[in-house]
């Protein structure tokens, strides 16, 4: 294992795992407390359309995926603020159409042979230097926004009606949370793939929620749990030569069950 650490692609993978874990810990906490898990799933799958477009036009993948993900986040924000009761229908629609667009465009791309599995289940071992820059910048942006607007985001997440009465621009912060979720989903796709993104955004967060008395504590704990699961998952994936995304998620799920079991025993 130690010799593996000398390979640049392993170093990149570890770095990517940590950066994405921190980002998904913070944003996953917001997604969970705002009950937006299904929205995040919708955004992740819509992003696949963007991946298809990027592949077809020969653009950087992150760019295409980001544009589609942020676009879908904006549409979702608009719909939730206007027609909340129809939200699940629209998200389901975007979810499927996004995937379909991606599949069709990748099929139509000449010479591109079905590497699309890597977007579905992640390809952390193929992280490039530019990817790392993208992930690092996103994490910096998230941390900056969260420290600067923590009290507003907390108020909007806890009780948006009241926040509105206190003169906080609820629409703005709601949209901001969705956009940050979209960008986080895009980088998390690289690590665990779009099908498994939801698990990375929820499992560590769920454990952290039970142990936290404040939102920022929940964010920090989620980031730590997520990092541990990601690193363990990578190790398991390397040792037994299995897909990294899936092993990260299974480690997380296993830890969750362990946590719940211990919790139940202690409660007795």
């Amino acid at each position, binding site marked *: 294992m130690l010799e593996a650490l000398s390979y640049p692609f392993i170093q990149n993978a570890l770095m990517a795992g940590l950066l994405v874990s921190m980002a998904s810990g913070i944003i996953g906490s917001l997604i969970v407390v705002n009950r937006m898990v299904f929205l995040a799933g919708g955004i992740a799958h819509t992003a696949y359309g963007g991946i298809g477009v990027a592949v077809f036009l020969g653009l950087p993948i992150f760019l295409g995926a980001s544009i589609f993900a942020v676009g879908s986040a904006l549409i979702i924000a608009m719909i939730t603020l206007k027609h909340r009761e129809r939200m699940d229908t629209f998200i389901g629609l975007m979810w499927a159409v996004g995937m379909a667009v991606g599949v069709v465009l990748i099929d139509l791309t000449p010479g591109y042979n079905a590497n699309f599995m890597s977007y579905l289940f992640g390809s952390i071992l193929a992280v490039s230097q530019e990817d790392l820059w993208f992930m690092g910048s996103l994490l910096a942006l998230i941390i900056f926004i969260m420290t*600067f607007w*923590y*009290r507003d985001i907390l108020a909007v997440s806890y009780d948006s009606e*009241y926040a509105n*009465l*206190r*003169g906080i621009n609820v629409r703005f912060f709601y949209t901001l949370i969705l956009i940050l979720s979209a960008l986080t989903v895009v980088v998390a796709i690289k690590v665990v793939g779009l099908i498994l993104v939801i698990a990375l955004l929820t499992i560590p967060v769920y454990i952290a929620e039970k142990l936290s008395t*404040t939102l920022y504590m929940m964010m920090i704990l989620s980031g730590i749990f997520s990092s541990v699961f990601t690193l363990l998952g990578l190790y398991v994936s390397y040792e037994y030569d299995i897909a990294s995304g899936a092993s990260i998620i299974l480690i997380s799920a296993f830890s969750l069950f362990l946590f719940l079991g211990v919790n139940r025993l202690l409660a007795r």
Partner: protein
Amino acid sequence: MSPIIEIQNLSFSYHKQKVLEEINLCVEEKDFLAIIGPNGGGKSTLLKLILGINKPQEGTILTFGETPKKNLSKIGYVPQNTNVNIDFPIKVIEVVLMGHIGTKRPLFGYAKEETLCAMGALEQVGMEKFANEKIGSLSGGQRQRVMIARALCAHPQILILDEPTASIDIDGQKQIYKLLQELNNYITIIVVSHDISVIMQYANKVAHINKRLTHHHMSQENDLKHKCDHFCEVEMFNQLREDK
């Protein structure tokens, strides 16, 4: 003295269905107004209009002589249903801090003044010991008092509560009403409530709203018979008095 809330010929409808019709109502300083009436009678809608969340379609509504939006900081609001989001990882003090309108806010976090104010509000409702507890660990009555502290945080002149005792045990309810009575010494209180029998002990004015308004001034002796200007409600009130 001019009234602090003045509502004239106010009408409001949702999707062409009239919810409120020709409401006239004045609230004066240090009033304790109880708003009662059946579900769907327009009580919550009236509150939303006073708070400036909705705009009147006909008629006018003035708080402190201006449109409601301009005076948000002078009105403290305790919404219905404080039992939502119980799992949310947040401390009592953080909930109270949300009551600030944010004019003195520093670049990051909360100003020292704001924290002191929030602690003061918690002391007012007797919850200062719980400042660092998670909100979900409190009982319904305790949580309701925290929500009142949140509303008191910005030093309002009017406190509006929507069904403050709906999901609280009887002891908790008594405490809440006692607290409101104390607060009424220096601020105006408006309570929407179903427990007519309880609220009658504390309110000096009662407004019954069922699309239209029936307004009752209550004298110290609660002598309703002579004070009610609308016969339709007299029977109900008398019935209640007999029940007591």
